[in-house]
Each structure stands twice: as C-alpha cells, then as structure tokens.
C-alpha cells in the first residue's frame, strides 16, 4: 500500500515535457471559442417557417436568428403551450459557466508553467467534471422547460424534452439540435488534456523503465 502511494506520489511529481505543456497551452487557447461561438444550436422548421427559427445557446447568453427576432417568435409560439419564456435571465448557467471556464483557463496556464503531472491530472479531472455537469445542467434545463407547462395553457401538449442531439418532431415543427462550434472546441479541450496526460505518462515510463 505504502509502495503504491509512493509510486503515485512519484508519478504525480514527474515534470511535464514540452509536448504535454504545449498541448495544455493549446487547450487554454481552445477555451476562447466558447466565449465567441454558441455551445448549442437549435433549429425549428414548420410550414410557416420555411427558413426555420434558430436558437443559439452561448456560454453566457441566449440568442436568436434573424437578429434576435427568432427567440421572440419562439416565445410567442411557446406561450400557447404554456411554456415559460426562454430568456437569458432564466439561465443561471450563463453566470457560472463563463466564470468557471475562466478559472479553468488559469489552472491550465498554471499546469503549463509549473508543469507537473499532478497539475495535469487536476485540470483534466476538474475539466471533465465541469463538462459533464454543464451538459447535465443544460439537458435538465431543456427537460424543465418541457415539463413545466402552465396548466392554463390554451393548447395542451404532453410534457416533452426537446432533442439534445439530432432530430425530433414536435407538433408542426421539425426540431434539430446540435452542439455548436463552442462545444466542439470544448470537446477538443478534453481530448487535448487526455492526450497530454497520455504522452506525459508514456514518456514517464520511458524515463523510469522500472516504474
């Protein structure tokens, strides 16, 4: 047991090489797109909306296509089924996600500069935790909106969850939901951190063949 702890301690103390550090830096840079591009795009087509209504979920705001008009239109339509208005104020995620991403970014830099295996493990674990939590949080929000319909709604529909990935038919709408550029960048961050860890691990084995 003691041996395992010591071995782990040694492993965590291993300094990172150039390649893993560069990848952590790159991962840091790849956090930037989640401030610039949507994390999620939802598009709704109906006979009356041949060009589709577009909803863009950023890390910090909701936005609609057609200079923001689409989100108003989506709310006008949703009020018939008693759905609460989609608005930036309703999403607590928009407050904590940008902050957490920033904090993670600083930790990435710390890992790249101080450059020990332990830092890399820290950021990977924290990052995955953040990613999965954020994903759950958004998914739950979608579920919540679809399951908290006003009982007095003029049009009664069964509770529903909008599609999280792919296509779903909802009443007269064909709804398509896909991650946005921001999300793909975040996924790439996870991948880079994993690869960095893998490379660091592999080079550590080469340095200490006994280990």
């Amino acid at each position: 047991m003691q041996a395992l702890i010591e071995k782990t301690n040694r492993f965590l103390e291993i300094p990172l090489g150039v390649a893993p550090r560069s990848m952590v830096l790159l991962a840091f840079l790849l956090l930037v797109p989640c401030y610039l591009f949507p994390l999620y795009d939802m598009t709704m087509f109906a006979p009356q909306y041949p060009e589709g209504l577009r909803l863009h979920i950023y890390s910090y705001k909701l936005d609609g296509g057609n200079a923001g008009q689409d989100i108003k239109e989506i709310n006008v339509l949703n009020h018939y089924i008693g759905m609460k208005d989609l608005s930036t104020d309703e999403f607590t995620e928009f407050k904590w996600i940008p902050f957490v991403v920033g904090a993670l970014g600083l930790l990435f830099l710390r890992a790249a500069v101080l450059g020990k295996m332990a830092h890399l493990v820290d950021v990977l674990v924290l990052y995955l935790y953040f990613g999965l939590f954020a994903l759950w949080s958004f998914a739950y929000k979608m579920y919540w909106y679809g399951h908290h319909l006003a009982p007095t709604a003029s049009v009664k529909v069964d509770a529903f969850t909008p599609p999280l990935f792919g296509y779903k038919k909802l009443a007269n709408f064909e709804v398509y939901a896909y991650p946005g550029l921001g999300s793909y960048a975040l996924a790439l961050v996870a991948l880079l951190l994993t690869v960095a860890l893998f490379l660091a691990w592999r080079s550590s084995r080469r340095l200490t063949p006994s280990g």
Partner: protein
Amino acid sequence: MRNKGRILLGGLGIVAVGLLAGRCAPSAPKGAKKAGAVSDVAVAAQKTYIAPGDLDEYYMFSSGGHSGQVYVYGIPSMRHLSTIPVYTPYPATGYGFDDESKAMLGNLTWGDAHHPALSETNGDYDGRWLFINDMNGRLARIDLRDFKTKQILGPIPNVSGNHASSFLTPNTEYAVMGSRFSIPIPKGTVAGIDKYATDYKGVVAGIKIDAKTGEMALGWQILMPPFDYDLGDAGKKASDGWVFFTSYNTERATGKLEVTASQRDRDYIAAVDWRAAEKAVAEGKADTIGGVKVLDPKKVPGVVYFMPCGKSPHGVDVSPDGKWIIGSGKLQGVTTAFNFEKVQTAIRNKDFTGDEDGIPVLKYESIKDAEVPVGLGPLHTQFGPDGFAYTSLFVDSAIAKWKLGTWEVVDKVPMSYSIGHLAAAEGDTVSPDGNYLVGLNKLSHGRHLSVGPSQPESSQLVDITEEKMKLLYDAFTEPEPHYAQIVKADKLHPIEVYPKEENKHPLAIWDVKDAGVTRQGNKVIAKVVEVRSTITPTVIEVNEGDIVTVAITNIEQTTDELHGFGLLDYNINVVVDPGETKTFTFTATRKGVYPYYCTNFCSALHQEMQGYLIVKPRG
C-alpha cells in the same frame, strides 16, 4: 310601262345585292384573328409562368384612376400583389380610419389618380418614392420603403383638374401639376362662361420636392391661357431643365367641347424652362394669387413657349437621350418628333409666329424633325434601350413600334381593346430596360368571364425583346389604370416589419403591463397592445360623451403578423403592422357595450383576440 320596267329592274337589283350580301357577309372581320389579339401560347406560357414560390422580375405600379388607389403587380406574371391606398379609405389596411391617414385625406373620400412617377436620380429610377396625382389638385408621395402613402399635398390653390401630373424632373427636383379645367382664379372667383377666353386661367405648377425626405412643398406656378393642360414630361439629359405640357382646346371654346375644341388643326405643347421659373420666383418677379407665387408670362418673358402640335395632343414624351420630344395629336394618324436643339434655336432666333397671352408661339416647321405615320389615334410613347419607340394607338387599338432618327414604323401589335397609356419597363427613364411593355387598355369586353355590366379594365403584357412584338398575357386590372411605372425589382428594398427602435410614437408601448386607460377631463386615452393572441386591455371603460383616443401598438417584430382593431357599431377598423403604432379618435356618443376584435387573421387563436368597449351612461 317603261317606268314599271325600271322599277322591276331596280327591284331585281336590290334582290341581287341582297343575295350577294347574304352570301358574303362574314361572321367576323377579315383581320379577326389580329384584331382580337392572340399569342403564341407555348412561348407566352413559358415567358410569363412564375412557379409557386418564385418571384417576379419587375414591379408594376398601376394607377387606380377614380378608385383613388395604386395597384402593385408583378411582371411578367401580372399577378396583383397589393393595393396601396392613396386618396380613398381602404378598410383592408385601415387606411382612412386612423387619425393620421384621416387627416391626410382631409374632407375628400375620393381621388382620381392617373400618373404615377417613380423618383429619379440622374434620370433613372432610384426606388425611393412613388408620386401620384389626383384630379382634385393634389399630389401624393408613397414611400417605397414600406409601400405606404406618407404625404398628400393639396388641394393646392389655383390648379384646377390636376391631370398633367405628376411627372418628375431627372433628379426629383420637381413634380409638376397643371389645370385641365381652367377656372377664374383664385378659387372662389366667379365669372360667367361668356368670359371664358379672358377671365378663366390655366395654371401649370412645379411642386418642390425635398431631395432628402421627399417632402413636397409649393414651388412655382405659371399663369397660362385657358387651354386644357393634359399631360406632361420633364426634359432629361440634352433637355434637362425643361418640362413639357400638352394642351387642347386652344380654341378657348366652351360648351360641347368634343366639337368646339376640335376646330384647330394644331394645338400646343407648352415648353417651360423650370430653372428660369425657379429663378424668376426667387428674384421676386411673381405675383401672389391664392397664397401662391404665380408668374405671369406677360410680365416675365423667357419662361414658357408654345410648340404647335398636331390636333388635340394627348401625350408628350421625351426620348431617353432628351433630344426629341414626341407629341401625339390624338385626332391624327401621325405622331410628331420635335427636336429640342431646334426648339432652342427657334427661341434664340425669335422664330415665332405669334403669341398667346404673351407666350411666344414657335414656328412648327422650324422645330419638328418628323411626322411619324404610326396609325390612328396616337396617345403615348415609351422607349426601348435600342432607339425604338412604342406609341399607343387608341383608335387603331394597337401599339406601333418605330425607330427614332429614321422614323420608320417597323411593327404593330393589336391591343384588346382601345389602349390608352402604355408602360415599358423603365421606359420613360434615360436607360429603358427593353424587356416588357404593358398596354393599359380601356376596354376588355369578351376576353374574360362575364362579371356583369361593370367590367374590369384590361392590361396586356407584351414582349419587346425581339424585332416583332409578342403579346404574352391578358390581365384584368382594377379600375382604372391610366399610366403605370415598371421598375426592376432589385431597385426596391422594402422593409417587412417596422423596427421597434424606429417607433417614436409618443403613445407607443411595448409591454402589456403598460396597457390601460388614462383620463383628463372627458378626454380618454387608451393605450393598447396587440400581440398574438390578445388585445390588452381586454376591456376599455369610458363614459358616454368622452372623446376617446385609442393608441394601438402591434409589438410583434415578425413578418406578416398584422393585427386589426375593428370596433363594431362605431365604424372603425384600423390595421397595425408589426412594430407600428396607430391612433384613432372618436366620441363615445352611444352608451352600451361594443365588441372590438382583431380583424386581420393572425394566429390559431385569432378568434379569441377580442375585447369590449363599455360606454357607461352619463350621470
């Protein structure tokens, strides 16, 4: 005996002629096929068919005549796209019911709108505004950003029977007006009809247009002999700075004009140097009549000249390069091409044959280039890009195509029936388009499903891309198209909602929470929000005798989400477009409960979009 024989022979002769006639009388005229214009079906179908969802290439703005409106058609499909109410209330858009449009219409509920004119920059359509005249001495401006009437100027003083209007100068400096029915001026002056030749006055006028806003204002007026000023056109390029008006009844006749005003072989085209008129007014040379600056050519020479033109001319049209002025004597078989250079030379050389009330009359022979034998009853001329001119022939019921410069007539196409104006695509600009032309016919009989005695007019689409003109399509247009303007669709950029941030209406509200009624004495203001599918407030309470202003804001920002507000028994219906605020004011003269509802179908729950005006009894 001899007499008897003669009678017998005569009788036989009659029988023989009778038999001959019986055998030969055709069931239709020889040229029947030609007279009832036909088209090559396959070609025409392909050229005019716009598949569902596809768009037309051109807008046509057709005057609505005494309906007082402007009708918008797509070309080449000839589909009616929309109606722009101008001089007549139009419940379909609520026009003439809300405070603003009601004020614009004044006390008149009809107009006779003849000649639409698209605004121009350097002689080309710039897609900003459409102007159109009214016989009641008015001029209107439609903004093509939203296809709405924005201003009606007039009735302006002195001009009586504003037919020779609204032709624009090449940079939209002026629209013109003219009296078709001379009267003693200022309006309200009385003189017996026996004093017609001396005491009745014609007036031609330039209405100043603000280059930035399009706002119209009184410009100059010129005192003219009591002729009937009929049509006009502004010079362009070579002839920029001049406007031309045709006139008939230069006989100064009264009574049965169809006879008395058709005695002279030539009447006149008045050529007005509008820059000189502008200058003379600025120099204080005008008299004030009826509150307007009026130039008297007797006192201010050099502003207007008469060009003799074939009998009772109707249309006058300036060629794209501005070199020729085409005047059509409607009671002749020729149209006359005047050379602007020669007009200028004649003016310089004082090549006059006399004068009319101080206005010099130029020598016909000195200023004309050609008399083109286009056919009977020539009225109006439009142009193609390649030096061809197209003249409508009312009596012949046809269009003649002829060449400027060589003056040869190269083709004719029959019109069904009795064409008045014609409109070629951008055919009155400095660069005509040359693809299509529409004949605006006065009669349509027999070419449509019968709709009873009150028949529609006919507008016929003609392909002018090739040497031979080809009839493509019959459309039956709202009464009554006079002139029309055809413009390439990509020159117009209409909005489809009024952006919220542009709405500066003092009574606009954007949140249902702000909706409600406020009162000051017996003046009540109800601020109303319309959005799918509720009118807020759903109840408006007022007292009998209150003066109620209802301000409705449609807070939608979605294309095509119009809402109406119809108030039963109070004769009110307004329609508000997305992002628009309109008010209407009425006195609650009758107590009771009056439903209001959305008249413009908007949504699945449109029927529920309703409320009540409760007028509580006094005391």
